[in-house]
């Protein structure tokens, strides 16, 4: 059923006419790439990628179109169905699912088998696999963990906590010294998702995280309630920055830099801002999220990917391009520019202290989450993170929040 057959048809005709016009001017061997790499570092990384590819493949001309993040999310849907480029950047996990289900991304399993990517890109393979096939190539990810103020810990005679008990003990002492244990800003919602992910993966493990985000477990399940029992131990004594719902994650950094808060559960991208705020490597430490239950260690590591649209008109070169992107030395150099981690495990290790620690952390992980809002479908993710934020502001709403999430889950995964 199509609600707007006439308009659709005329739009299609227009699109085809445009394609025809473009097709006449574009020579064979041109590869069109659409990305949302609009920030300086990602932009430079993609430019390097295009240049290095063209140097190795002189018969191909690469053309990159850069979109801003928000605009890209909308226009992706348009250009995938109408005038498709040859390669697009996107994200792993459930984020790519709608496009795979709609048949808009090309199956690149052949590339994975041919180049041995199942082994080289092992850590990200599960999040690139859907219906038993691979739908793109991952090129970068970054670790999450707790950044903490080494100097403050030393001043108050505290050691880096390795277990939940130790974390609580450290929090009690920090609070008593007038320091808020955790910096956080949940205005954009997702930072609350990070906390839920880590508590959930530490209490119930990675398999449960995947089961929950794919809708197989009710939110009223005793295991989810157990996660909130742990969370209660931090929320109720006020271990998070007050008024966190009013500020963004960047706005919480000044409190961390000024020493009003001592720890910050965040992605590696926050380090840059923390350093700019004046923290030296002697002051800024990194620790894995402490152990809670005796489980294999799992981490959040959101992965960025590249895909070939089904409607690409130059799939042969697009495949060569993706194969190039998967190479160890290319990923090493790209991530050096990005300040993130290469997914290819044969790539050279990063030099940066925090990335090095993150690299070790991720290489030893038994499972990687993509982050709550990438593993869960969009609508569930939104309701979930809103619920987490509400709970963090009003811990008494916990039961109500979980019941609401359960009703959303029933509708979303029907």
């Amino acid at each position, binding site marked *: 059923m199509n609600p707007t057959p006439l308009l659709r048809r005329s739009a299609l005709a227009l699109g085809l006419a445009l394609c025809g016009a473009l097709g006449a001017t574009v020579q064979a061997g041109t590869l069109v790439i659409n990305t949302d790499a609009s920030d300086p570092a990602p932009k430079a990384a993609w430019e390097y990628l295009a240049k290095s590819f063209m140097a190795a493949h002189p018969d191909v001309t690469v053309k990159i179109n850069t979109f801003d993040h928000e605009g890209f999310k909308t226009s992706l*849907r348009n250009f995938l169905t109408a005038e498709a480029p040859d390669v697009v950047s996107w994200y792993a996990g459930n984020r790519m699912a709608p496009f795979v289900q709609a048949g808009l991304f090309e199956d690149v399993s052949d590339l994975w088998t041919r180049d041995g990517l199942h082994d080289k890109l092992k850590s990200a393979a599960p999040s690139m696999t859907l219906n038993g096939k691979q739908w793109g190539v991952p090129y970068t990810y970054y670790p999450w963990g707790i950044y903490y103020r080494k100097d403050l810990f030393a001043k108050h005679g505290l050691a880096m906590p390795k277990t939940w008990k130790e974390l609580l003990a450290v929090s009690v002492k920090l609070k008593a010294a007038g320091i808020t244990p955790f910096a956080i800003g949940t205005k954009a919602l997702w930072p609350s998702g990070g906390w839920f992910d880590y508590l959930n993966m530490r209490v119930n493990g990675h398999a449960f995280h995947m089961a929950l985000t794919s809708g197989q477990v009710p939110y009223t399940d005793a295991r989810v309630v157990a996660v909130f029992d742990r969370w209660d131990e931090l929320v109720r004594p006020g271990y998070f920055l007050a008024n966190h719902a009013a500020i963004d994650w960047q706005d919480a950094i000044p409190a961390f830099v000024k020493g009003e808060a001592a720890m910050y559960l965040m992605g590696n991208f926050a380090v840059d801002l923390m350093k700019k705020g004046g923290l030296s490597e002697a002051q800024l430490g990194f620790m894995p999220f402490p152990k809670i239950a005796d489980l294999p260690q799992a981490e959040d590591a959101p992965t960025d990917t590249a895909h070939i649209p089904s409607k690409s008109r130059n799939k042969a070169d697009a495949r060569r391009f993706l194969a190039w992107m998967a190479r160890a030395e290319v990923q090493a150099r790209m991530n050096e520019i990005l300040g993130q981690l290469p997914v290819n495990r044969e790539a050279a290790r990063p030099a940066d202290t925090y990335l090095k620690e993150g690299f070790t952390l991720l290489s030893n992980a038994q499972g990687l989450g993509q982050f709550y809002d990438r593993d869960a479908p969009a609508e569930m993710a939104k309701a979930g993170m*809103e619920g987490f934020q509400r709970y963090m502001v009003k811990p008494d709403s916990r039961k109500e929040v979980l019941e609401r999430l359960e009703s959303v889950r029933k509708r979303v995964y029907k």
Partner: protein
Amino acid sequence: MPATGAQGHDGWWQRHQRALAPWLFLAPAAAMFLLYVVLPIGQSMRLSLYDWDGLGTPVWVGLANYVELASDPDFHVALKNSLIWLLGFLLAVPMGLGLALLLNQTVFGIRAIKSLFFFPFVISQVVIGLVFTWFYNPALGLVDKLFGLFGQADLAVLADEDLVTYAIVAAGLYPQIAYCMILYLTGLNSIRPDLIEAARLEGAKGWQMLWHVVLPQLRPASFIAVVVTVVGSLRSFDMVAVMTAGGPYGSSRVLAYYMYEKALSEYGYRMGYGTAIATVLFAIMLVYILFVLWRIYRQERELG
């Protein structure tokens, strides 16, 4: 004109020219209006009966989207907030009138002062939203300092589910008052001095003068001020998007923003559900629009 053969046609044209001409002149605009306004409205309403993610084939679901709306707590919040916006925003009309009366003087430099008061309306809504977000910042904001004087320090207005909508409405009022003020200032220019004179001779002054002599003459200005304010309040979107993005946990959503979230935002792409919200918003506006049309119609008949 050729004299023969076209005689009958000519006659018909001559007879109906006066009746047809306005319609012919209206035709281009009417066609545009049909194509770009009426048709899309119909399409949206139709889409609200489908489940569609914007990519696959839409699935017919009948009234399911509306049934879901009826029991959707987020929708209830958005509806309630839209009503708060509607009522709160109407304050701009009397406040604009007050300012206009205050500034309607003939003093040296009053033009410059008037334009200063008009300034908020010239600034983009997005900028006003940002500036007010800073005002409301619990750590550094101006409002926090004010609250501090009354012992209410560290009140994060934009993170408080009970206060957040009022706080955004207050920010929205800032440019809207200026707009109403300018409407009233123009209205005040066309007030008949002889009527004022006459009223003064009769001994009217103060409130009496305002209520019985000035306000009736400002009726057209009041009418337009109320119209733009109501429409502005119902389509309030930018302030909410900039200041809170509907937060905390969805408590500052309004209908227009909720529609955007469900249909077009990062976590949305439920086109059918989004258009169902849009249809409800349209129905609410329709009540008001019909009232306005009826009034205009009645006025025209009075004049004609």
